[in-house]
């Protein structure tokens, strides 16, 4: 029996029979059953993206209501209580329910296609990540819709979040919801890391990874390290609130500053986690429209990692005013100034790529290239806050609000919308409309800058953040009115984007497999890709397999149509971490109810904890155990086999 464990995969080319076998193995069953059980990374990726865009729209509407309240001084459209829930929910939505999940969505969809694999390393874990994200998002929004939304900002400082000052369910919804969501982030991060190091096509050595993969990989490592800090913080907060522990309660010897450290040691790396993959989108997408490879690939990849490493050492710049000793502050100030350098590498690489290439203007190009300027504006305002004395004036004014929106909209939303224009043809087989795209871009670009560029001045004129209304001091009124108008223009731009997507889904021009003449593996398969992605596993020889015949230089040729067939089971190839040498046939699991079941069990657990309905916690726990049992039940077809060596 032992020799069954060794098998040399057959090498060959695509054929009708072969494709039929793969289809039978990989296609998700139709209808509701397929919907609830699918582990196909493409379906999961699109679900992530659609859900995240719905949250983007919700968070945007919240922002517009706030901008109405702030359009003039001393308005009373909203009560302070309503305003506080709105700005807190807006932050929670955009940061946790839009910015990170939308990138997970793109990475989920794209990674196996970029890497020449048939799925992520752990397909069921992938499905679990999505279901938990959806469930925790609904959980958090249930709080908001029942008047129990978070009301202490997304940063949720204690003691205001403690029960003494915040007796409602608001903070319990937020604390438990964040612990719940943390499970999704964690399993997703683990999946990305293993996928990056294990399931690449043969020959895709680590120096041939697309920058998007570098970005998401770096972000995932960071998430795995820092999400436990914030999950712990929220759990301790919930314990303080419900069981009278004193982790953050000064009256019982606790420390309000402990919360801030736990939160920002997570929060700052998280900021990088929600921009590095988006920067990767630009690094991969921009060169396609410049008709040349990215300038300084290795430097950009290394700067991605360097940003994150430095990013672990800057969290105290959120706490410069908390009375920490000057010597400590100077270290974090220095680190926050130095972190400009790896970002500058990316900026100059992108500029050089455009300058040395032959740029073609498309909507995607406009979003990617304008992001460079928005990134720089968001970067230099961050540099100003890195100087401790300057930050003592800037912090908690609208200057910081302007800064963070340049970071989050400029470096996340703009690349993501650009990436949608770029990869939508791959996902749907249809092009987004370019003419509507121009309207979409210019409305968003002008609206965004109209809203947020003057806001820097609002802050420099001293307007504090998180106020539900303000006095008519010099300049504030006019600046706020401009911001409100800009916010609505930006919203129209985003609306045009949604319109373009919905319209093009039905009547967009047919795309073909490689409409942009792009160089990477995802463009080698049909649009949309078949369930198994690659009918034969490609073998890579360069970073640009679809350009290598035209770029000249070197004679290395990748093999796209000829490779391992792997059609005897639901299989893909496992390769070594650095060089991408194949060393194992990976058996992939079939569609499964277990991820959804596990999520439903967890919903019962968290609702039970919220309402202190212990029987619900018990039932939920039993469902979770059942789901795990079915998940881990041994299956002979999942037994791993190694290919013969030598």
């Amino acid at each position: 029996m032992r020799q069954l464990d060794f098998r040399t995969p057959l090498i060959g080319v695509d054929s009708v029979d072969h494709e039929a076998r793969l289809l039978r193995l990989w296609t998700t069953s139709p209808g509701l059953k397929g919907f609830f059980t699918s582990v196909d990374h493409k379906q999961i990726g699109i679900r992530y993206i659609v859900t995240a865009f719905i949250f983007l729209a919700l968070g945007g509407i919240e922002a517009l209501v706030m901008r109405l309240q702030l359009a003039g001084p001393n308005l009373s459209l909203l009560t302070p209580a309503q305003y506080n829930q709105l700005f807190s929910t807006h932050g929670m939505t955009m940061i946790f329910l839009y910015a990170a999940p939308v990138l997970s969505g793109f990475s989920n969809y794209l990674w196996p296609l970029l890497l020449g694999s048939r799925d992520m390393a752990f397909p069921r874990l992938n499905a679990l990540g999505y279901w938990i994200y959806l469930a925790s998002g609904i959980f958090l929004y249930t709080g908001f819709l029942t008047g129990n939304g978070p009301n202490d900002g997304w940063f949720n400082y204690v003691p205001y979040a403690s029960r003494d000052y915040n007796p409602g369910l608001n903070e319990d919804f937020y604390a438990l919801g964040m612990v719940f969501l943390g499970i999704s982030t964690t399993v997703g991060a683990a999946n990305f890391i293993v996928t990056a190091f294990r399931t690449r096509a043969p020959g895709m050595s680590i120096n041939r990874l697309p920058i998007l993969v570098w970005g998401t990989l770096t972000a995932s490592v960071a998430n795995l390290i820092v999400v436990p800090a914030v999950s712990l913080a929220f759990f301790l907060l919930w314990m303080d609130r419900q069981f009278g522990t004193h982790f953050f309660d000064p009256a019982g010897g606790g420390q309000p500053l402990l919360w801030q450290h736990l939160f920002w040691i997570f929060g700052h790396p998280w900021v990088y986690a929600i921009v590095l993959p988006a920067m990767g989108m630009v690094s991969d997408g921009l060169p396609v429209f410049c008709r040349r490879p990215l300038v300084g690939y290795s430097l950009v990849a290394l700067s991605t990692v360097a940003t994150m490493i430095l990013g672990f050492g800057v969290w105290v710049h959120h706490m410069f005013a908390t009375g920490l000793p000057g010597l400590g502050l100077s270290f974090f100030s220095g680190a926050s100034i130095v972190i400009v350098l790896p970002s500058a590498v990316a900026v100059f690489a992108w500029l050089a790529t455009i300058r040395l290439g032959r740029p073609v203007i498309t909507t995607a190009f406009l979003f990617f290239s304008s992001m460079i300027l928005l990134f720089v504006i968001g970067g230099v305002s961050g540099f100003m806050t890195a100087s401790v004395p300057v930050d003592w004036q800037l912090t908690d004014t609208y200057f910081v609000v302007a800064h963070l929106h340049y970071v989050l909209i400029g470096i996340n939303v703009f690349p993501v919308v650009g990436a949608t224009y770029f990869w939508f043809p791959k996902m749907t087989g249809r092009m987004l409309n370019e003419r509507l795209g121009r309207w979409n871009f210019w409305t968003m670009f002008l609206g965004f800058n109209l809203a947020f560029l003057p806001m820097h001045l609002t802050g420099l004129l001293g307007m504090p953040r998180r106020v539900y209304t303000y006095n008519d001091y010099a300049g504030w009124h006019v600046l706020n009115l401009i911001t409100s108008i800009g916010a609505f223009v930006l919203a129209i731009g985003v609306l045009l984007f949604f319109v373009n997507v919905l319209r093009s889904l039905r009547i967009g021009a047919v795309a073909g497999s490689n409409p942009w003449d792009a160089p990477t593996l995802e463009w080698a398969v049909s649009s949309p890709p078949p369930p198994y992605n690659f009918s034969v596993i490609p073998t890579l020889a360069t970073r640009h397999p679809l350009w290598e015949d035209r770029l000249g230089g070197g004679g290395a040729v990748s093999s796209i149509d000829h490779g391992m067939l792997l059609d005897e089971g639901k299989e893909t190839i496992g390769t070594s971490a650095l060089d991408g040498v194949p060393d194992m046939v990976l058996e992939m699991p079939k569609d499964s109810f277990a991820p959804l079941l596990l999520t439903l069990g967890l919903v019962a657990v968290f609702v039970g904890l919220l309402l202190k309905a212990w029987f619900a916690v018990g039932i939920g726990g039993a469902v979770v155990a059942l789901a795990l049992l079915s998940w881990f039940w041994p299956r002979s077809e999942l037994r791993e086999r190694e290919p013969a060596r030598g």
Partner: protein
Amino acid sequence: MKYSPLDYLGSAAGVRAQAILPLTWFTLLISIAVCVIIAVLLWVAVRRARPQDNSLEMRSIPLQRGDNGIRWISIGLMISAVPLAATLVWTMVTLAAIAGPPAHPGLTLDITARQWWWEVQYNSAHPSDDFATANEIHIPIGVPVLVRLHGGDVIHSFWVPKLSGKTDVIPGQTNLSWMQAERPGRYLGQCSEYCGYQHAHMQFEVVAESQADFDKWQILQRQPAPPPVTPEQTRGLALVEYRCGLCHRVAGTQAGAISAPDLTHVMSRRTLAAGTLPNNPGNLVGWIQNPQNIKPGNLMPNQFLSARQLSDALAYLESLK
């Protein structure tokens, strides 16, 4: 349109703010210059783009490997490093100069931040000379003033942009800040850490004045409240002791609680409710009757006094100069 009293870019009136101001301008100008340079580079690079026909036939545009472009990155980094290093050095020098509290303060204040007002305690060598006020801080000019910040409930932040940057007020720890005004004047302060419903209306004023004026003010503030003179004032005092005294203090009377602003010299202050209203009899009456309408969520309940009670209370309170 009057100038913004919280602006920290136009002028500074205190030693600390004056040290920060040029550094703020320096980093701001560098930032603007960087944005302009990058925008120009980007514009020059993109301007060469070919006119786009709608066919999107990208395949017809030849690819090129071209110059590897590393020079751009290395030169860009070298140029970027210069202002970064300069900022780093200037930051450290400024930090060293203004971070620490003064070794020999001319005045030490204990300030407690509460939802949503500021309690200010003046201490002296003789406990009988101690007094408290609220939301209005008088300091002599040219003298370093040490501020000890105490958290009364949640986190707040002490900020007088014209005099000094922010220092958070955190329950369970005593943070130190200091300020030294160089010019007489009234400088607006604002809570700058989110603290709940009325974070927006949590202001205070720092009144910087000559040492002589300050001494005069201090002597006045040490006096207990004057006894009532008219019958209205006498009835008003009884009402204040009975109703207001559950939370407020009026020195020299039986109103002795300290969970709300000290009213001993309330009429000497320029604003009511932490900068929410100008302090005049009309606003005072409105505030007493309906504070929840003016500052929703604040901790003072509506009073529902009869017209006569109200005029009695007002008669007495107006005597608290």
